[in-house]
């Protein structure tokens, strides 16, 4: 499943790279922009999740090390409990793509 998720993110990265501000850049700069985009998308998705957590859920994970498998597991668990969170993710991604397309300077 992770492979498909990754491919979705990469497709969105390529989508942004097609805009005139980026499409003519040298490959190296494109790769740098791509890294920034991935980071932007990751932040947007994780922020959307944290914004959707209940106080009780926040309490459950506040002391778990962020880079631990336990945190990964809890995030997956909580994401499965938020109604239509997948729709929320798509909305957040669409909003970010649009934002960057309209204002490429965000990535500079």
């Amino acid at each position, binding site marked *: *499943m*992770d*492979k*498909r*998720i*990754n*491919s*979705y993110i*990469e*497709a*969105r*990265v*390529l*989508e942004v*790279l*097609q805009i005139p501000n980026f499409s003519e850049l040298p*490959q190296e700069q*494109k*790769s740098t922009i*791509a*890294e920034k985009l*991935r*980071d932007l*998308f*990751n*932040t947007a*998705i*994780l*922020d959307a*999740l*944290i*914004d*959707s*957590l*209940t*106080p*009780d859920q*926040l309490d459950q*994970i*506040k002391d778990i090390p*962020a*880079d631990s498998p336990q*945190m*990964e*597991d809890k*995030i*997956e*668990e909580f*994401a*499965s*409990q*938020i*109604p*239509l*969170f*997948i*729709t*929320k*993710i*798509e909305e957040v991604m669409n909003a970010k793509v649009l934002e960057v397309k309209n204002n490429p300077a965000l990535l500079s």
Partner: protein
Amino acid sequence: MRKPEPSAIPVAPEPPLAQAAEPPAQLSETPLVLPTEQGAYGSVASERSAAVSRAMSEAEAERTRRLRTEPITFTRRPGAREREAEQTKHFFSDARIRDGISEAVKKITGRLPNKEQIEKLAKGAGRKVSKAKVLGQPLPDFIAGAVLGGGAKQLARTGLAIAGVGGFGIAAGAGAVGGLAVEYYKLRKTVDMGETSETKGIRQGLKNELARLKAADRTKLRNAAIRGAISGAVGGVVGGLIMDHVDWGNIVHHVPGIGAAPGSPDIPQLAGAPAPGAGEAVAPTPSGTPTPGAEGITAPTPGAGVVETMPPAGPSTPEIPAGVGEEIVPAPEAGVAEAVTPAGPSSPPIAEVPETPEVESPMDISPKELATPPGPETIEIPAGSNPWVEVDKYLTDKLGRPPTTDEIERSVASLLSDNGIVDATKIPAGTVLNVEGVNQHIGEILGSAQLIPPDIAVLSESLPLPVNSDPWAEVSTLLEDLGRSHTNPEILGVARELCIQSKISVPEWGIVGDFDHRNLPAGFMLNFNDEVKRKIAQLALAS
């Protein structure tokens, strides 16, 4: 949908008949004489040649005999989509998923379904999920892998998510349907407004902590969030399906509005949120083991604004395995049985799940497969180009028009996934990529097999017309709840389709049906089937 004639499907080259390929008996019996000199070698070679000729003639004769006497069967090489459809079938055959379905039905109806009902619901769930899309891709593409290695956690998680949608289903049936998420986020907003500064601090602190992680770790967490969201999406879609199959007269959800009534439940109890325990620490449940997280949930009841608690499926209630294959029995505790069966014991215990005609099953033969046009198997990424650009060109060529961004995005995601590309910006020039998945997307587009996003896929397919309402008003409210654009022409487009599908006669719109739109009784079942849902899906999200 029509099942294909075998000859209409591209077939893999038929291997030569096994008998013909085997060394004939005579050949194997021919003694192998090692040449000692040129002349001797020539003599042996001649004998062997004659033996081979005899054997070939006999093999040909055998082949001819077989062709005359035995039926010819073609073996079709299954495509990637077919394989995934098959895996999706297995996904819904898994005991953890079926336990989840069982729990969800119990939460909605107060009763456990029997084995046959679970079987039908699971099959229907497979079909329904096959029509839904997430992240621009068919939902089965994401869950199919769970059946194979490493998917136990995903299966268990999804089973729990399904189990947790009992309240979700109730809300869906209550007419608020797609507004569910909107309501959830409205309530979350309300909660946020009343959030203590400590909680706000924890929230922000977590964000900051995750932001400081290494990119690879953040990607892991991102994937975990999306995996969970997909499990939840499956749960939501299946919850909607369960609502389609329960008897409207016999359950407690005949009240418009969801848990926003005075004294409405807090977030975890809100319709759509899994029951406590759903999604908790996932240890794959052994086959036939009851799904954890079966605590009671609150649900709207016929009394305006009254919230009634269904009993938990604890030890005193029949466990799922015990109910399998048996008649459904009312939960022995609390008056739920009475609440859900106002007509008394003579009323049917639970609505029979209607049979879906087998020919409609996209799990058997996907329409995408049928509509897939012939095309090259690969494309090359030249220097200075990338998959987006090449897919754009390829789609333009195949569709005869410029593709939409969404069409390119879906095809690119599929291309990258099918070819195992991790970084789309670092593909060496000259790389040749397999386009089987892209061809299947083209087939979908040409075949108009438009998939339905999850917020619309979860809508119940049958909704009762409330008192003093009409199809137009219902469509208008629904679009508003869904956060979709709803100008009058847009409402008209969906309302027309709804009337056609519900067999409602509207002479003003040129629609002839069985029921006069001016005399529709309250409770008339409006048919929000896939045709109507696709109309809704075509509308843009309201800004």
